[in-house]
């Protein structure tokens, strides 16, 4: 039950985005991926669900090499994974309800749980996930274009959570959200991994949050892994980039909050 990158390299044309990247995430862990813009964080996540294929090396999920799977096996792997894309990526032509319910109606999901969900069950599940991301049920019949960016982003989160996947990939889940919602979502990620043993990979710029909920932190730069550290050892790192990231964060957060992983965060 793990995700493993082995010597993964990927280039687009002459641009080498990933250079022999290796790392591993175990079941129930939360791994944060930090890095400057354009350093291949989104590209890394897309490799896990086979949206991109490595030029060399392999991405393994539960021991299976993702790039060597046939369509049926790949569909099974994707069934296990949920991804929150950097863009909200909601289907424009469907309502919020239909968007969130989409994953509950696919043939693979029905096969997985053994029977189709009744309309009542679907509605209940959709409302539950909507509440998890701090949204009201009034927006269920809206089209995505009627919502603000932050709301769309949260609907996208709810859509990903609805089929209750084992692996969750978050591409900047809280970018562009207010601090209260950001806290709520970080708590949600933390709860999922602790209570349901969901494995989470979180791409983020938010060092403060990484220091709060991450089990491990990985810093990508220039296609390489610059640092791969536990939350506690990260602060001891001598890397200038990490120091910069930390300096930004430390300026904003009172030291007391950094030492203890204060979850169930106090809303500011």
């Amino acid at each position: 039950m793990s995700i493993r990158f082995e010597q993964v390299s990927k280039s687009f044309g002459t641009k080498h985005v990933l250079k022999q990247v290796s790392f591993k995430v175990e079941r129930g862990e939360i791994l944060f991926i930090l890095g400057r813009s354009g350093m291949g964080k989104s590209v890394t996540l897309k490799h896990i669900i086979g949206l991109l294929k490595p030029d060399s090396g392999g991405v393994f999920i539960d021991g299976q090499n993702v790039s060597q799977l046939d369509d049926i096996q790949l569909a099974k792997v994707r069934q296990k994974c949920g991804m929150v894309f950097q863009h909200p990526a909601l289907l424009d032509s469907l309502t919020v309800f239909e968007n969130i319910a989409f994953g509950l109606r696919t043939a693979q999901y029905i096969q997985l749980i053994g029977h189709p969900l009744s309309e009542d069950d679907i509605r209940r599940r959709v409302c539950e996930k909507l509440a998890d991301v701090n949204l009201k049920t009034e927006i269920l019949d809206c089209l995505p274009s009627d919502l603000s960016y932050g709301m769309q982003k949260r609907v996208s989160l709810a859509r990903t959570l609805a089929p209750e996947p084992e692996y969750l990939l978050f591409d900047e889940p809280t970018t562009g959200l207010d601090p209260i919602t950001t806290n709520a979502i970080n708590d949600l990620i933390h709860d999922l991994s602790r209570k349901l043993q969901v494995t989470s990979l979180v791409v983020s710029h938010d060092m403060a949050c990484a220091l709060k909920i991450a089990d491990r932190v990985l810093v990508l730069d220039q296609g390489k892994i610059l640092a791969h550290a536990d939350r506690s050892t990260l602060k001891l790192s001598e890397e200038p980039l990490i120091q910069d990231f930390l300096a930004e964060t430390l300026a904003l957060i009172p030291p007391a909050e950094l030492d203890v992983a204060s979850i169930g965060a106090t809303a500011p």
Partner: protein
Amino acid sequence: MTEVRMWLSIVRLFFQTIFNFFQPSAWRRAEIIHAIVQSGIKSIPIVCLSTAFAGVVVTQQIAWHMDLSLHDVSMIPGFTGQFIFRELGIAIPALLLVSKVGASITAEVGTMKVTEQIDALKLLRIDPIEYLVFPRFIAGIVSGACLTLLAVAVTLSCSALVGILGYNFGALEFLNGMKHFIGVADVVCALVKGVTFGSLIPIVSCAYGFHCKGGAQGVGTATTQAVVSATVAIIILDFLITYFFTWFL
């Protein structure tokens, strides 16, 4: 070089779409009907308006020249009829569809691509070709055929109107004059062209949409390129199909 690669991927997309014919799950009624409304029914007014004026202009030009050089206008129905059936009544709706339907498809699919909606579809285990291209492809075939017939009918009627009002033809006389020059092959040719162009537009547009890169600017560039490519392709195919029908049938 990039154009060659683009056309290769257009051809590949064409075959991948064709493959969906045998996939029962691809026949999503609601989506296909929606696409027919978008590409076909909503194009009826503009197609009628443009082809009506084209019919008037062309008939008047042909008549004026015949009158001037041959001092005889009896051939107007035959000439205009053939010209309308072979080219005018077909090229105009096709080019209108490129700019109206093709551009909007590229913009829509391109936006879906750059906002990761296509990736989201794949993750939801939906084949983007089956979900996005196939309904538009079927709609393109249906609307291509129907709009072509409609356009030909409108153009012919307006042409006849010019003949009747401006050159003292009787209505029956005008129609009979046309009948001599137009055969079954012309009708088949018109339909073949309508279906070809109607199916080409969504494929080219979707292919450019799928290859979109960057943000809003990328969508804009792709839309322009799709319109240009589809227009050129239609003009070349028009020539080839006409050539084939003229010499081999």
